[in-house]
């Protein structure tokens, strides 16, 4: 150390050289740093564009393969959009009427929502407005566990527990029926509705709540007359997202709802949903590249359009709503 200092003192020129050296090294470092910054920035932009690429390729793939489906002689657009007979595997009497699958999907979704929306909303109100901290600390993890259970487990539950129970209640229930699948989908959507609706209720400013309570309203008055209307758009968006989730649900209906496409409103009967048909196609041995294989893409495209429009409307409603309080 001492020698070092002595040396630098003895020759001011060597100090000058060293300072210059340091400075130039700093400049070099700066150049590499700048280059690194730009490279990383472009890599990140690549990541961001990747998500756009996914959307573009979903739409591109589904659109081209659906168009190829409509180029087959046995397929007509009027049959596809105007009929409820979905019998792609029947050889001579093939018919591709998408309503046969959509009606099944709607039936299951309707049953699921009749279960999930009221229960989810009331639970959300309870969690947000009434529940003491301790109860929240127990209920929230339970809802999270329910939301984290894989759908194939719900499918097993529907087929092995709900269906026998329904058959015990009423003998008319088929082994595969829309009711049991719908209830299981409802249980699956329940945590979704609940947590999204609770988020909406929680983001209502505290001043509104305090104002309603200060005017002498009970908690019920404050909730029903002030907080619910204020959070309405968020709650509607929660419902829409839950409906989209129920429509896209696959494994439960594949296991419990059966595989006979028909337009019926009888929940005891066997039906097939759009997702159920896709699973049947993929799981079976229809690997020849025929009409029924491409019908899978047409069904997927229909499903994609329905769920995408629901999620988009849901997200737009929620965004609008968020802006009003910021």
């Amino acid at each position: 150390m001492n020698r070092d200092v002595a040396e630098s003192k003895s020759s001011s020129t060597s100090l000058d050289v060293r300072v210059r050296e340091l400075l130039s090294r700093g400049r070099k470092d700066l150049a590499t740093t700048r280059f690194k910054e730009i490279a990383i920035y472009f890599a990140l932009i690549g990541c961001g564009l990747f998500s756009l690429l996914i959307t573009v390729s979903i739409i591109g793939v589904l659109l081209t393969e659906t168009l190829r489906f409509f180029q087959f002689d046995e397929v007509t657009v009027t049959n596809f959009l105007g009929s409820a007979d979905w019998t792609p595997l029947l050889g001579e009497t093939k018919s591709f009427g998408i309503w046969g699958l959509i009606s099944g999907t709607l039936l299951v979704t309707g049953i699921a929502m009749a279960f999930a929306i009221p229960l989810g909303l009331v639970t959300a109100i309870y969690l947000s407005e009434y529940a003491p901290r301790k109860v929240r600390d127990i209920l929230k993890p339970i809802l999270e566990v329910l939301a984290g259970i894989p759908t194939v487990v719900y499918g097993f539950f529907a087929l092995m527990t709900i269906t026998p129970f329904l058959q015990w209640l009423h003998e008319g229930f088929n082994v595969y029926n829309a009711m049991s699948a719908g209830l299981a989908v409802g249980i699956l959507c329940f945590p979704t509705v609940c947590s999204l609706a609770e988020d909406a209720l929680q983001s209502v400013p505290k001043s509104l709540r305090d104002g309603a309570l200060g005017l002498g309203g009970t908690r019920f008055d404050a909730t029903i007359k002030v907080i619910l209307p204020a959070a309405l758009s968020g709650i509607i968006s929660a419902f829409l997202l839950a409906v989209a989730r129920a429509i896209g649900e696959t494994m439960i209906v594949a296991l419990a709802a059966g595989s006979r496409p028909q337009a019926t409103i009888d929940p005891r009967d066997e039906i097939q949903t759009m997702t159920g048909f896709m699973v049947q196609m993929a799981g079976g041995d229809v690997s020849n590249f025929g009409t029924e294989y491409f019908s899978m893409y047409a069904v997927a495209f229909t499903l994609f359009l329905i769920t995408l429009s629901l999620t988009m409307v849901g997200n737009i409603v929620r965004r609008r709503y968020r802006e009003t309080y910021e």
Partner: protein
Amino acid sequence: MSQAPQEHDRLKGQEESSQQGQEQQRRLRNSVGRMLLDHYFRLACIGIACISVVVLVFLIGSIITQGVPSLSWTLLSGTPEPEPSEAGAWPAIAGTIWVCTICALITLPIGIGTAVLIEEFKPRSRWANRIFSVIQLNISNLAGVPSVVYGILGLTAFVSMFGLVGSLKRGESSFEIGAIYYDQFTNLASDPFMSMGVEDAKERYFLAPVISPSDPPTVAKSGMEMFEYQGDQKIPVKIEVLDPFGELPSDPDALSLAIAADTVPGRISEKSWYYFSLPFGRGVLAGSLTLMLVILPVIIISSQEALRSVPSSLRDGARGLGATPWQVVWNITLPAAAPGILTGSILAMSRAIGETAPILIIAGIVYIRNAPQHLMDSYTVLPLQIYNWTSRPQEEFHAIAAAGIVVLLIILLSFNAIAVILRQRMQNKVR
């Protein structure tokens, strides 16, 4: 004359005040009603909230009662035999580990990168701002796309690669690394019709290397050098081609090296652990990439939330010391957000483990006896195996499916537990 209207007003006033009194009484009564209503509503809320607890208990209870009796070591280590008592899920468990590990390795960098881009590199120009909001909207829409649709996309994009390279229909790929092809010959002794009089000779198989998989079958010649497996090692041997109806040598060793003149070889291939081919086919890599599509939006959204929760004073401090944007992210923001990002990623991975529909579309239901050996190997995953067992008519398989579910739920619950512990640690740190 003027008194009458006044009188009238007074009377009217009295009337009004009595009306007011009635109104007040009604309101008072009403407020009791409102209190009661509030009370009943609270009770109803508690009752309905209990439903979720009841459902969870019922669900877990029914699966445990059905599944625990068939939990056994065979289930964890065995192969999915057609006999229920011998059926196991080892190939499925190994497949889940392979697929989810590769999926995590691919998804985490892309997902966190996107989140960092949106949260930390906010653009200043209006035009770039618009692109960013499109990306943000796109991500929240992608999160709502049903996973089965991702399966269909993966089927086209990864399994057959849009039909651009090779053809899946004919089962050939246009590009391969790490595969060696052989023509396999059987010797005279292993042919049941030819083995008359050669019972002493043991059955042997000889491999003749093939340069390209599209070559015509090798024609065997006397004195040709082929390979033979002895244990794990390939040993070169010289073979003899004989007319099976002619005179056969009496020495069993020499006889065992003989191949009938008209033997047609079978084409087999040996694939190394780094085997790679285009298109990906129904292999592990295609499955991992498809799962990536499913969980990418989940990881992006949770990482965004974690990054947003880092106080901006930290960033400002680093910036004030002269750090570049990336230095701020790498040294300050990412370490501060790491527990949140990790929690979100673990939850996303537990979703990937349980995801069935896209894998079902990609891989189909196939009978798999072995754990995957390379990235293009066919595979199955635990939820798919459960689906397979559940959809069979025999009762015994349903019990095994329930046992498989118990295994799956234990894996998922341990993942969730890790996430919860991490989150609590993080909260303690912030406090």
